[in-house]
């Protein structure tokens, strides 16, 4: 068995199998790290939601990419609603009221997407209370927007499928915040309710990455198993050839094939000994009608 395993072909296969296994193990480790990072990020976002409110401009200036560090932060902002630009968002089992808030910043006026509240699915513009007029001071949660859904610039829309800053930039113009505010104070007037905090703690992604990690490690084991099967099969074929000392039939006994000479190929060994085996009449009834090398019982052939 050891000799079979150390033939160049099988050593090369072993190197390939180990390389594959190492790659898979590394991929598993990578998924495990991702799983941890995702879990930490969510835990941190949930924790941030409990922090005291800070001024929006000090946390996230307009037109600045949203990082995980600001998502979930409670912020305050002062500005004026622009009710003429209000949109309704079909958010699955609810309708969100999305109104731009005009905010004066040191660099000029910018728009902040504000979700004033949520109501039942299918609500129309007449079903939602109008936005307060004049200057308002809002407290709410910063949330990352969704990816663009493909609204054309200047499109005349009243309803959208998601709060996507990239889409909103086309409808409302810029400068625009890339996050949106889910208002918590003042408490949204009925029938609106404050947007519930998204589930950041449990399930989903961490579990998925952890699952992927375990699967990669299983695959690594499979790679090594396959190599072992290939060697075992080659060994079995060699052992089948009737050239063992254990063979009782003297005509079947011949000098063992030298290792280096036969190295690299299993088939020559098998085929070289086949005619001899046929001559020795060993297992002929099996070999004759199966058209392959004879197959003596494993019992004596395996070391």
């Amino acid at each position, binding site marked *: 068995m050891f000799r079979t395993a150390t033939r160049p072909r099988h050593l090369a296969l072993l190197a390939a199998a180990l390389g594959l296994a190492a790659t898979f193990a590394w991929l598993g480790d990578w998924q495990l790290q991702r799983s941890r990072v995702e879990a930490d990020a969510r835990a941190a976002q949930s924790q941030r939601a409990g922090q005291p409110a800070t001024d929006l401009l000090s946390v996230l200036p307009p037109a600045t990419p949203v990082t995980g560090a600001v998502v979930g932060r409670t912020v305050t902002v002062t500005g004026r609603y622009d009710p003429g630009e209000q949109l309704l968002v079909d958010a699955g089992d609810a309708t969100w009221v999305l109104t731009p808030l005009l905010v004066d910043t040191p660099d000029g006026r910018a728009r902040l997407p504000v979700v004033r509240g949520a109501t039942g699915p299918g609500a129309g513009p007449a079903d939602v209370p109008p936005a307060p007029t004049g200057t308002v001071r809002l407290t709410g949660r910063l949330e990352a927007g*969704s*990816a*663009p*859904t493909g609204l054309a610039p200047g499109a005349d829309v009243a309803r959208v*499928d*998601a709060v*996507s800053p990239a889409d909103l930039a086309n409808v409302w113009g810029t400068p625009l915040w890339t996050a949106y505010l889910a208002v918590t104070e003042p408490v949204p007037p009925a029938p609106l309710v404050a947007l519930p905090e998204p589930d950041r703690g449990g*399930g*989903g*992604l961490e*579990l*998925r990455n952890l*699952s*992927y990690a375990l*699967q990669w490690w*299983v*695959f690594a084991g*499979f790679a090594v*198993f*396959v190599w072992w*099967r*290939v060697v075992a*099969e080659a060994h*079995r*074929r060699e052992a089948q050839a009737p050239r063992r000392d254990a063979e009782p039939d003297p005509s079947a006994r011949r000098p063992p094939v030298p290792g280096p000479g036969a190295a690299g190929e299993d*088939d*020559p060994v*098998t*085929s*070289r000994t*086949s*005619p001899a085996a*046929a001559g020795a009449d060993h297992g002929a009834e099996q*070999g*004759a*009608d*199966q*058209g*392959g*090398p004879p*197959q003596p019982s494993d019992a004596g052939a395996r070391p």
Partner: protein
Amino acid sequence: MTRDAPGAAEPTTARRVDPRTLARALQRYRVMAWVTGAFLLLLTAEMVAKYLFRGGEPWLGTWVAITHGWIYVLYLLTVLDLWSKLRWGLGRLVVLVLAGVVPVLSFVAEHRVTAEVRARTAPGGRP
């Protein structure tokens, strides 16, 4: 039948496995090929819905991806088992492994594998 010429590629070793054992291994593989293929189609639909139409929001949920992963592990187990019993080469193993991750390919592979194994184990012997 004439004896194989020296150097003929594959000795008829598959016969030495008990046909009933082989039939069971084949059946397990076939079931998993279909389950894997079906889940892979579901996963493909989930990915298309999630990234093309929902801007990254899951549609059916992440359970589709997680379940497909573990089903694929089971599928590989049945593939390795059948491949060992049939004493096939590495090339076929690679095809069967890939068949579990390329949509629809598992159905095609299942069809061919079944036909081939049946031809081999049929009373008439290998053609």
